[in-house]
């Protein structure tokens, strides 16, 4: 939290704000091109509810997808590495998102950019 900038009027702590003017959607666009089904996600949370990894960790594919969509790549690598690739989410997803392909694409693109 940035407490130093005490200003009047409307300010939002930089850390909290999703700054779409600054955000880069490069990762989202790349993933989208390779796995268009990322666009179908309606954030219902079925994937996160059924997730084998979520029993032991705070992994949430729903959140991960939103982060990619919003251009938030910080900490994404560590997040995506939690997935066991078991495929339960793919069976459960009501929108037919190819979740495993999506995870692989995010993985691969993060590897390439070294983030």
């Amino acid at each position, binding site marked *: 939290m940035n407490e130093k900038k005490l200003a009047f009027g409307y300010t939002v702590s930089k850390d909290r704000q999703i700054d779409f003017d600054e955000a880069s959607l490069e990762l989202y666009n790349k993933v989208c091109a390779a796995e268009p089904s990322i666009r179908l996600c309606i954030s219902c949370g079925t994937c996160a509810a059924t997730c084998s990894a979520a029993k*032991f960790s705070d992994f949430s594919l729903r959140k991960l997808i939103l982060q990619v969509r919003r251009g938030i790549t910080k900490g994404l690598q560590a997040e995506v*590495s939690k997935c066991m*690739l078991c495929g339960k989410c793919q069976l459960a997803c009501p929108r037919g998102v190819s979740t495993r392909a999506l995870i692989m694409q995010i993985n691969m693109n993060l590897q390439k950019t070294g983030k």
Partner: protein
Amino acid sequence: MTFDLFVIPFFGGLIFLLVVLFIKYSRWIALIDRSGRRKIGYGLFSLQIFPATWEVFLESLLHRRMWKQNKLLGYMHMSFAFGWLLLILLGNLESRIYSGGHLNPPYYPIFLKFFVHDKRVLPFELNTLPGFFRFIMDFVLLYILSGLVLAFFKRIHSRWFGMKNTSRHNRFDQWAITCLWLIFPLRLLAESLTASIYGGGGFLTNSVGDTLAMILPAAVTPGMAYVAWWAYSSALGIFFITLPWSRYMHIPTEVVMIYLKHFGVKSGKHLNSFSEIEMRACPKCGVCIDVCQMKDAGAVGSTPAYFVRSLRMKEGNSLLNNNCMLCGRCKEVCPVQIDLLDLRIASRNLENQSIDKPFSYLPADVPDSKGINVLYFAGCMGHLTPSVKKAMVSIMDAANVKYKFLDQDGSVCCGRPLMMAGMFEAARSLMEKNRQAIHASGARILVTSCPICYKIFNEEYKLFGVEVLHHSQYLLRLVEAGSLWINHSGLSVVYHDPCELGRGSEVYKEPRKLLKRVAKLIPIEQERENALCCGGSIGDLALNQDQRNIIRDAALDVLLEPKPDFLVTACPLCKKTFSSAGTAKVIDIAELVAQQLEKADNLIEETVEESIL
């Protein structure tokens, strides 16, 4: 006269080919790891050389597996391979009659009829040695030409050869195939024209020559003959030069691969030098394309033949690597027996091995549970088919099994999906976690409902002292041991072999034996090794939902064709996939057994009541 300028294309091409092959093979063999090289060293001087040579004879020359696939296809391949070899061997023997020496230049037997005109020989004069050879050489040439006619028809109508698809050619393939097709007609033309001028042709070349002589003015035949010899030599030369980069590289490479396999060299989990040899041993015959369900989903480019080609051409990409269900149908039919699944996984590994998955969040403690005999593992997918879980629990309760439901509250994935994605290191950390829990339980038998888990438990976990069983095997054992009483339901069923259980683990017998005790099993054509994939495969990392649905529906059409009461499977993923279509009543083998168990209970009660009355 034992030289003419026209032999240069052939001779040059041959030397070029031999040099290229020598460089390529010695590089690949040099790159094979030390243990592999040692195996080759031992193998060369072991008895393995005999079965290996026998296999080369059966497969590379006679094309036994091709014959099994389709008789016309087998004949066609055999006529080219075996016929050509006979032509070379017999040609060599024939040439000795005239030269008397052993040090003939290699082109001499090939172009013998240009250099030697034996006017004494008459067609069908079989009682002299030259006459016999002349006859047999013409006969072999005719044999090859018959294969060529078949090859021509195969291009027009591949269905006659049991094939719906043939592979497309690249530029080298086009050059090579054009030359290959021209070689034998040109030889016929050259030999026939020469025979028409000088005589001495066999039954074929003589009669073709006579016919040509009738049509053509006598003045042009010598010139034409010379041109034909040039063309024949050039076709051979170009074929040899393009061969190492075309599909025909499989001809010498298959031989090398068969020997290496017999010596115990394998590609395994990583792309290595042996994989390079395997890739080139693929003739792109297209048999795999026919059985591959990816083409149902409009992904012909992902079928094994094209995948291997792009791997060979170093044009592989992640879509090609990932777009395969690893169902194993191609591996069953491949005439060259290339391990297409290992190749696919290994190329995924090359791309994905650096993806880090430490799984540090997994709990350190291991559940303690002494005093049990059996450990039950439903598997991740099993939690989405609660009726299977419930059936297993009720059966094990009924049979008084002392068991523990290891993943009742959720599973640590078995690691097979990561293995299939080529992330071996990541898979191993999950495997370690499960291995600890399995060993800590003290159980002697591990039963799983998921064929995906079963395969990896069985093959990779190395669970010493613990027997791994799929529930179909375990239930059969309970029934056969008299621990379970089940009734025949009278229902007619079709059994779907899950890929990982059937082709993947070769468990075909037990589920059928168990099923026959509870239902009437309808045999279908596409079962066991030929079973279809449901389309839900976790082996694939690229198919979209619509494509998966297409594969599923096509498989269902086949499975439901005999109109069974139920479609029975033994895999939660297959069950979920098939039932999602809403067109079939799908049931797991364990559910069917559990249902008949209840009826058996009722039966006992009824008989008890009757006896009281």
